[in-house]
């Protein structure tokens, strides 16, 4: 027996690009790029970026410590100020969603499952490297409960305590304190000191990125649209992991092109195309299922109220005195006060924000995506629907997840909804 030679044929790991996961990304990306005409030339940067990162599995370089965040509430200016790089860990891959099912009940949010799935796999895509710290703001229940699980996967996790009432002064005080504590945690992690110059530089950096985003956002007010929503989502998705300066430059280039388009009277869609505001659970590449279905069906997503795009980049910080104490407090306020996340007790701000978006972007209707298992969005549906009813704005509520199985059924519903918007528009005209 001893002499027997067992020739173990090592299983060659298949290259990532041939994996099911890469295939998923490839399909969606091809769809985004090839099935639509006249994509802006400046979008090529983003197409290439996603192809490299998601389809080829290329590594994304970063400087300093890597701080993963699971929510938009982790103040990235602070992370940058400490010389670390933030990366948003929220994931949109169906592959990871399935992997993450091991950790969470079946009926839970795909996003959280996908994030857990990603963190638990050895070969993390996007290939950002292992975060030195995972910051997990205590927002929704599912994210709260993932904290320990992530820790179990061998990561250092920091629970950033986040209030779930935002109107009260107590919550403001509480949150400001949380942010200050987070800053001291970052100091421990990086060994660096927070200085006025560092924080100012970081705020200048994010400020420029936000200004670029706002410019893009404003171009989308144009009727008929200059750019499709699927591209806009891709741009904001890239902000999750891309180098912020490179990203800003690319967006500024895109804006320049949109300005040209505007001057030339370009139309990305038919003038009759129903304009839709997208709200609810965030579309994250490769799960751009709904925006793509909408735009395939002849609609156009003109604005959104999601934490993967608008909510992440829209609100800007004002500082009165550029002293650390004031800057950090102002930053804290910015991450709490304007936030329209459904985890809060009240959602007046979200309703007002949606009404304002519909008004400002001349939208014809609203599409509300709730990931099945994302209870807070599911629960807020009723109040939001009532608000839109009152205002006479049609809304389509869609409960879905990352699986591609319901595409057919959803496309029928979306087509019908868009058709009704068109008819309504016609009747009004």
């Amino acid at each position, binding site marked *: 027996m001893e002499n027997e030679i067992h020739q173990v044929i090592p299983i060659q790991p298949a290259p990532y690009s041939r994996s099911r996961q890469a295939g998923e990304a490839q399909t969606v990306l091809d769809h985004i790029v090839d099935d639509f005409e006249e994509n802006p030339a400046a979008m090529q940067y983003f197409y290439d970026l996603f192809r490299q990162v998601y389809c080829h599995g290329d590594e994304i370089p970063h400087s300093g410590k890597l701080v993963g965040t699971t929510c938009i509430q982790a103040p990235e200016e602070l992370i940058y100020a400490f010389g670390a790089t933030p990366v948003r860990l929220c994931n949109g891959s169906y592959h990871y969603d399935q992997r993450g099912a091991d950790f969470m009940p079946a009926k839970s949010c795909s996003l959280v499952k996908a994030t857990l799935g990603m963190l638990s796999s050895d070969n993390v895509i996007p290939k950002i490297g292992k975060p030195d710290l995972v910051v997990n703001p205590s927002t929704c229940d599912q994210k709260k409960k993932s904290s320990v699980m992530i820790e179990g996967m061998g990561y250092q996790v920091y629970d950033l305590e986040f209030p779930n009432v935002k109107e009260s002064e107590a919550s403001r005080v509480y949150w400001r304190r949380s942010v200050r504590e987070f800053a001291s945690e970052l100091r421990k992690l990086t060994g660096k000191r927070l200085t006025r110059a560092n924080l100012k530089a970081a705020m200048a950096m994010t400020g420029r990125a936000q200004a670029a985003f*706002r410019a893009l956002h404003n171009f989308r007010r144009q009727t008929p649209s200059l750019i499709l929503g699927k591209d806009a989502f891709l741009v904001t998705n890239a902000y999750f992991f891309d180098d912020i300066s490179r990203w800003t430059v690319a967006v500024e280039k895109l804006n320049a092109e949109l300005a040209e388009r505007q001057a030339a009277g370009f139309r990305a869609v038919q003038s009759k195309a129903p304009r839709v505001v997208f709200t609810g659970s965030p579309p994250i590449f490769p799960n751009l299922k709904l925006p793509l279905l909408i735009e395939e069906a002849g609609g156009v997503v003109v604005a959104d109220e999601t934490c993967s795009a608008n909510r992440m980049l829209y*609100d*800007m910080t004002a500082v009165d005195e*550029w*002293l650390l*104490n004031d800057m950090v407090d102002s930053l804290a*306020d910015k991450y709490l*006060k304007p936030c329209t996340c459904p985890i809060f007790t009240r959602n007046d701000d979200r309703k007002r924000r949606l009404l304002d978006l519909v008004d400002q972007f001349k939208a014809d209707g609203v599409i509300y995506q709730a990931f099945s298992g994302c209870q807070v969005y599911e629960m807020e549906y009723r109040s939001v629907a009532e608000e839109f009813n009152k205002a006479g704005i049609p809304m389509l509520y869609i409960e879905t997840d990352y699986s591609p199985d319901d595409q057919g059924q959803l496309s029928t519903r979306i087509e019908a909804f868009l058709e009704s918007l068109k008819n309504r528009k016609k009747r009004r005209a």
Partner: protein
Amino acid sequence: MSAKPVLDKVRDVVNEVDFNRFRFWFQLVAFVLFVYGGYLAIDLGSKLPFFSCGYNREGRAGVCYLLPLQHQLGRPLAMLFSMASLAILTGFLTFVLWFIVLNKGWCGFVCPLGTLQDWISALRRRMGIRFSNYTQGQFAQLTKIKFVLLALMILIPLGVGGGIFSRDMSPPFCLICPARMILPMFTGDFSQFTVDFSSKTAIFMTALGISITALFLVGSFVKKRFFCFFCPMSALHYLISKPALLKLKKDGSKCTRCGDCYAVCDMEIKEIADDVKTTDIMTDDCTLCLKCVASCPESGALKATFAGIPIFVSTEAGFIKRMNKGCQHGK
């Protein structure tokens, strides 16, 4: 060439102005005017709705209305209820006319004592010392003080006129007002920094005045616009602010409640950020400094209007410009 694009351009320039710098220079000019204008024989009367202190005899270019008001109210009662008091009424009307023009903007842009507090704040800022805040509970209590002071400011002179109080208590508010001591200093008059030992009341009042001035110096060093919070002039302003021309308006539908305006508010007025229903958003504590408008990133959410015409509107472009400037220089 139509006038419209030109007008739009002007509007853009105004809305994107480096507001803090503009305000700094405006305040400086106003300060020089009202503290030293007397040397240029400028006299704008004695009904001014801000602390152009009358005790600054040499330099004043006009006199704060509270001084003549307290004196008029301190007349003997027989005289107070005679025709001679018509002057009180006409005086008040003149004051109202002055006030109506800038509303509380007098506080935020012109008042020398307010400007001084801003300068003391600037000194602290340059020294890198953080400012203090009130808690919400403290705020709710302290905000009433100015109305109490206003009431006392009216009742005590009446009592003096009626013979209940000593004349050494008149004019009561001026005696405890920091402007009485501090502004004359700027023209080299330090005579207000004395304790008057001529009577017990005089000792008390002058010592109280000095104590409050000392508190003012400490307070305005750690707290932005420390004194404005207690200013009876501010209370008086608020009571007659309805017909004012300069207004601070808020469009709640455009507000994201991000709190940027609150973050820059010297007076810590929470309503400016949280109230999305009131359109006339100026509160009793407001000094109408318009910093909130300058720091609002939502186009059209906050604006200053003059006689209904928007003169300074919050814009995204203006916000970004000012913000970038802040990031680079940081004031």
